């Protein structure tokens, strides 16, 4: 479990959608916003937001990353918590921004911003302490916790605790739950052979688990594993955890 100390429930939060969700999984972003709104929070989505800067940062282009990061810091300036539906982007915003802005005129603002960053499931569990009621049909799911979620954010149990609240959801264990899926951002195209081998192993693990749905909190992993499963002709539906939780707990009537 995360050993961070958490604030009281706020009235208002920012939502940082992430670029992958924006372009490929907007339903997951919308579901995240709805989960927060259902708890009575005002959710702000600054329209000027774009990307956390991680792709360039991890590729060794820090100046470019900083320019993009600055755009986020400036548009999330009020003292509200910033909720991020991705362990990977949340870690970039939270753990890398202070260093990225070291000795920069925006350093104070960046440090302040980074301290307000929470990954979505972390916020739902520790701050909002949500209580979920499952309205869906029985289903078998596999959970994939991203490396950044597990090891950079220290969030191993939080997402699983949320899934465990859903009575009809059968969580199928993976043999190598903690092993990386091989995405690694630009790693997947810079070292495609190793990346593909890792993704194939993870896809095989998911397939053997008997899961019908693959749930993850990170769209990079989701795209990597489900893209591999799909190319192999496997029928496992990929779902971001926000979308999965929202679909099963909101009253459609």
């Amino acid at each position: 479990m995360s050993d961070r100390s958490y604030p009281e429930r706020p009235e208002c939060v920012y939502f940082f959608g992430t670029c992958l969700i924006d372009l490929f999984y907007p339903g997951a972003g919308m579901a995240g916003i709805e989960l927060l709104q259902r708890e009575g929070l005002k959710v702000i989505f600054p329209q000027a937001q774009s990307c956390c800067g991680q792709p360039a940062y991890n590729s060794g282009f820090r100046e470019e990353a900083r320019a993009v990061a600055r755009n986020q810091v400036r548009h999330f300036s009020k003292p509200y918590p910033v909720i991020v539906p991705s362990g990977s982007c949340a870690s970039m915003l939270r753990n890398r921004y202070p260093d990225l802005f070291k000795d920069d005129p925006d350093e104070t603002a960046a440090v302040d911003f980074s301290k307000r960053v929470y990954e979505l499931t972390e916020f739902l569990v520790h701050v909002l302490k949500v209580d979920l009621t499952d309205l869906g049909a029985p289903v078998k799911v596999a959970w994939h916790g991203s490396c950044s979620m597990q090891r950079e954010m220290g969030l191993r149990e939080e997402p699983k605790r949320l899934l465990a609240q859903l009575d009809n959801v059968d969580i199928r264990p993976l043999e190598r739950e903690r092993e990386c899926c091989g995405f690694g951002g630009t790693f997947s195209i810079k070292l495609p052979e190793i990346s593909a081998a890792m993704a194939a192993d993870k896809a095989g693990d998911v397939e053997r688990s008997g899961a019908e749905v693959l749930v993850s909190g990170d769209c990079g992993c989701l795209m990597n594993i489900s893209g591999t499963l799909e190319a192999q002709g496997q029928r496992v539906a990929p779902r971001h955890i926000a979308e999965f939780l929202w679909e099963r707990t909101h009253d459609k009537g």
Partner: protein
Amino acid sequence: MTKADFRTSAARAVGDTQLRKNFRRAMDGLMEKRTAAFPDGDELERLRTLGESIRSRSLAKLPELLVQLEHTCRENGIQVHWAETAEDGNRIVLDILKQRNAKTLVKGKSMVSEEMELNHFLEAHGIEALESDLGEYIIQLAQEMPSHIVMPVIHRNTAQIAELMERKIEGVSYTENPDELCKIARKVLREKFYKADAGISGVNFAVAETGTLCLVENEGNGRMSTTAPRTHIAVMGIEKVVEHLQDVPPLLSLLTRSATGQHITTYFNMISSPRRPGEQDGPEEVHLVLLDNGRSRILADPELRPTLRCIRCGACMNHCPVYTRVGGHAYQAVIPGPIGKILTPQLRGLDERGDMPFGSTLCNACVEVCPVRIPIVDILLRLRAEANGPEQGSSVKGAGAKRDGKEAMAWKGWQAMHASGALYNGLSRLMAKTGNMMPGSVAPLKAWTATRTKPRFAARTLHQMTRKRGVPNE
């Protein structure tokens, strides 16, 4: 020689199913053993904190500790030599051997001697250096490099070793019985230990206050190499020094448990002098060669310095999902795996090995197990930036060597799109509309779609959806 490139060699290795099976099985076993050796998570974290602090303190005081070590060693009768480069180190060893007219020598396992390519150098000067660690002996027969820093021959299975020994050692018939194979090697090595003119070893820890050289091993070959021949030469990287004798037990415990899951190795040697008058055995002289070879440069940079905390346990490679799939040889470096990815480019320069820091998914599995908490991912990221960054003012050799005009331009374009809210909104909408028309067969998407379906752009972006649903902008 063509330039080493991790992608090319890793791509080849990943397609070798036997190799992958050998590594997966071996690494699974090692991970299990480590887990079993640290049953108490809190104790492990306390020990890691202690290990980190001992190594950090040693590095913070390194210059004075080295002077102290030189002094205490000399008082003990150990002759100390300083080597700035690998070439210097080789030359020093050769001179010592020549003066004693030594023609044959036995070696205990030493990664520093691999770094110096000492065997090769001595061979070129007519001196036979025989590896006496079983794994090292086997790879020497095969004329290979170690594929793991603790288990150098882990890439081969028993049948492959049996075949090699039958082919390379006279009078040996094929057997897959591990005991028999050990006996064969033992017979050859025994003979050599008796006859060798000199012995060479590495050093796991050197204690500054007492002038003691500590050597961790399991086969007794380290003790034989350092006691049977008349001359013993120990080679070590300058970072291996610790301040006090009491610094050794926690590091030893972390080392053996992290490496092989052993609580203590079969042999632990503490060498503190040559044979003294009246003593029955031991070498007549002991030499210590202290090798820098780029380490001072690493030491000088506070962000990179933790690289030198490494105690060479190999846990990072045992837990690395990349190493597990490609094995050690794919790195084309003396030290493979996560620690190799940060150490090698710093020692050899980013101009030579700037490819290495990019061969990682940054999954942090190594950071999680490192007994001295080296922030490997932070250093990988720093080296990636150095590889692309300006050469001027950089503390890393070969900085800027990986900078590629096309890639740099692509990131500038990416920056332009993402640094402005207005531009991003316009372009992302355009991508949502037209992105799916992009064929999957063009680079860089081609690398993705070789084994995966093409990512599908959603019809509307989250920005558009939130506006439509009236989610406030501020």
